[in-house]
């Protein structure tokens, strides 16, 4: 007896699954950085243009292919043309790469989440050194949050060649993360469909709480004003447009096969056009929403550090010159400095190297992205809030939900072609296939828990998916438009959604999107070639700063 294809219980589950997959960590830690670097509020212009030219059409294309062919990526492309089954296999391989390293982020989120149940938070203070005479030197020179991230979480080695051993704490967190993913995908759409209700909606609740908290923080307005003032001259910078296109492309998760897999579990008459527009708009809106939260947090942190710096200078001067309490304030500091220079010139010049120039702009200018933003900057801001344990738990729980949501999409992209294949599904039940996939990924992922693991993570993060995805989506678009035929595709869409696609979709599919992808591809290739030797940032524990090392080909000899 042939089993019918499992379906989503209702279209809402499908939309939530797509949102949960598309809205991921990139919305929180990449978009605010891009906004800050490329013109603040002005960055929204290239961003929305790229959304209309590239994001929505390609998303609709993938969903429509999946819904029409009702198979995972390998089967769908084989149905379009047997010569194109390589596209499907490429999608599965890229999804495999991504799931290998992406779940490590969830492991780190678990680690921080478990450590949030302490008072005070472990990254709030520096730990003491062995003799209890003072604080750890590495922590004093850097900051307590950086120390917690680099030493206690990652235990990072000075360079990628020094592998070190597997950190057992990180390894068990990784195993737990994979167990959670396994639990969610165990039964296929039956279990995934219930989980995505949570992973899609709860992060918005947490972001809302953080928005209210963030906007009421002292100094939040500084961050918002600084970041959002549009610097329209950046629009002339081609990098702004390229980064906008790249961000839209990767944020929607195109080319991995996850969207095809999700859509294949749809009813054949599902209105995927409307869903494509909804998902892409929600994804972009979430990015903007998250960056408002991030900028207010930035502003709070920068203001806090600035005021801390100023009060330290005041203290130093008050002690040196035996002035009365309250004589120096933040407002009269500059005037008083001049007065002191003239009255006690000798002592003042002696003191000069210790007096730091505190600047709010310098604090705001530290643009951070990626794991640095999520784990260092945010935890630094959280430790200064009241009831910091609550906010810490909420924040890392939200990171977990976002990460698990994206992992569900990635693993579905790998599993759907496997369960579609008659050969495998007759020999192994669904639970066993999911279990094997999770197990293999977990074992490989243990590499990222070694002392040099973060460097490997950076390699995968920067290079594993970029060019491959561009190529995959380019071939997808061209094959649907020219190999399968745009007219045939139109007819299929007419059958599925009830109306033919408008000229906007057709122009984007046939001309605009392929041209854009080709130009992105050419840009990245030339960038790689022109860069020459690739460098990476290493954390130097002795000098406590980043040094740039060159990737050595010998590091591949394990």
């Amino acid at each position, binding site marked *: *007896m042939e089993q019918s294809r499992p379906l989503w219980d209702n279209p809402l589950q499908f939309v939530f699954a797509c949102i949960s997959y598309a809205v991921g960590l990139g919305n929180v830690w990449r978009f605010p950085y891009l906004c800050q670097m490329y013109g603040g509020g002005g960055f929204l212009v290239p961003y929305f243009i790229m959304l209309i030219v590239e994001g929505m059409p390609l998303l609709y294309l993938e969903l429509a292919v999946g819904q029409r062919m009702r198979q995972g990526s390998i089967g769908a492309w084989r149905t379009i043309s047997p010569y194109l089954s390589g596209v499907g296999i490429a999608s599965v391989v890229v999804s495999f790469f991504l799931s290998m390293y992406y779940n490590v982020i969830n492991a780190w989120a*678990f*680690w921080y*989440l*478990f*450590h949030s*149940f*302490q008072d005070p938070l472990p990254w709030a203070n520096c*730990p*003491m050194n062995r003799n*209890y*005479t*003072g604080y750890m030197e590495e922590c004093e020179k850097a900051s307590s949050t950086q120390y917690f991230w680099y030493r206690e979480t990652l235990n990072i080695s000075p360079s990628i060649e020094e592998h070190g051993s597997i950190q057992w704490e990180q390894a*068990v*967190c990784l195993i*737990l993360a994979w*167990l*959670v993913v*396994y*639990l969610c995908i*165990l*039964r296929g759409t039956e*279990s995934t469909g219930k989980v995505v209700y949570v992973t899609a909606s709860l992060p918005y609740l947490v972001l809302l709480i953080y928005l209210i908290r963030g906007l009421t923080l002292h100094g939040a307005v500084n961050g918002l004003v600084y970041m959002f003032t549009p610097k329209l001259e950046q629009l002339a910078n081609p990098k702004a447009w390229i980064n906008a296109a790249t961000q839209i492309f990767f944020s929607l998760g195109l080319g991995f096969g996850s969207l095809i897999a999700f859509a294949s579990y749809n009813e054949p008459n599902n209105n995927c056009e409307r869903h494509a527009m909804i998902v892409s708009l929600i994804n972009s809106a979430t990015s903007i929403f998250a960056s408002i939260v991030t900028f207010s947090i930035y502003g709070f942190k920068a203001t806090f550090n600035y005021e801390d710096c100023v009060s330290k200078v005041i*203290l130093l001067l*008050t*002690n*040196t010159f*035996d*002035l*009365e*309490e*309250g*004589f120096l304030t933040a407002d009269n500091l500059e005037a008083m400095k001049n007065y002191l220079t003239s009255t006690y010139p000798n002592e003042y010049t002696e003191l000069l190297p210790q007096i730091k120039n505190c600047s709010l702009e310098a604090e705001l200018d530290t643009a951070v992205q990626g794991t640095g933003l999520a784990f260092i900057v945010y935890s630094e801001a959280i430790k200064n809030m009241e009831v910091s344990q609550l906010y810490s738990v909420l924040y890392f729980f939200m990171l977990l939900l976002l990460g698990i949501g994206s992992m569900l999409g990635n693993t579905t992209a790998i599993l759907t072609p496997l369960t579609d294949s008659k050969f495998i599904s007759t020999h192994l*039940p669904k*639970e066993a296939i999911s279990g094997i996939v999770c197990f293999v990924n977990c074992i490989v992922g243990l590499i990222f828990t070694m002392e040099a693991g973060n460097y490997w993570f950076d390699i995968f993060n920067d290079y594993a998916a970029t060019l491959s995805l561009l190529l995959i989506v380019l071939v997808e678009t061209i094959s649907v438009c020219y190999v399968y035929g745009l007219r045939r595709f139109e007819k299929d869409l007419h059958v599925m959604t009830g109306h033919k696609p408008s000229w906007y979709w057709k122009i984007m599919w046939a001309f605009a999107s392929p041209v854009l992808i080709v130009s992105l591809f050419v840009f990245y290739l030339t960038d790689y070639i022109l860069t020459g030797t690739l460098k990476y940032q290493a954390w130097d524990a002795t000098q406590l700063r980043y040094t740039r090392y060159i990737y050595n080909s010998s590091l591949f000899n394990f």
Partner: protein
Amino acid sequence: PRTGQNAGAAPFIFFLTLQYTWDASEEYLFRAMVAFAMRRYSSKETTQISNVLLCNVTDRVSFWFVVADSSKNVTTIPRKNVEAAIRMNRNRINSAFLLNDDTLQFLKISSTLSPPIEPSLPIWLIVFGSVLCLILGGIVFLIVSGIRQRQKKNQASAEAENLEDKHETIVTTENGIPCDTLDFKAGHINGVYAAADDERFTPL
């Protein structure tokens, strides 16, 4: 801050905001606390408040102080003893002024940092353990219920197959309608014939 050149004098500095103004009464309290510390340290009970002398009080509220030896005139108690006495009773002196080690600083007397309280089992392991048990329980439950469902389905489909085999042998169709549906359907009783048996026909 000026470093001590005076052999016996210990400099002393106030930091940050005082919740009260510093006046002669506060100075008196300070001298009393130092005398108390000396008495506790040497357990001699001879130090008087008048033995403690303050000098060079500035607006910042920083000053030098010495403790004169009551038994021998014109000599001061050595610096080391005074420092040890103060270190022993630091807590009491701090609380008398509603300050702490950061806000009430004695130069050259460094505060010892309190050792951290290490719980026997790190808290994160406890939370980790509970989450792990929950997840494992969920996985086992889903797998077991999945296996049971599949067994039931296999049984049900096996039974259905047996029944179908029996029907297969005797299904005959008449005008495209399988006879067994006619057999099992409740037949329509033609009311005319039923009534006919009873009263329709006139009896002969």
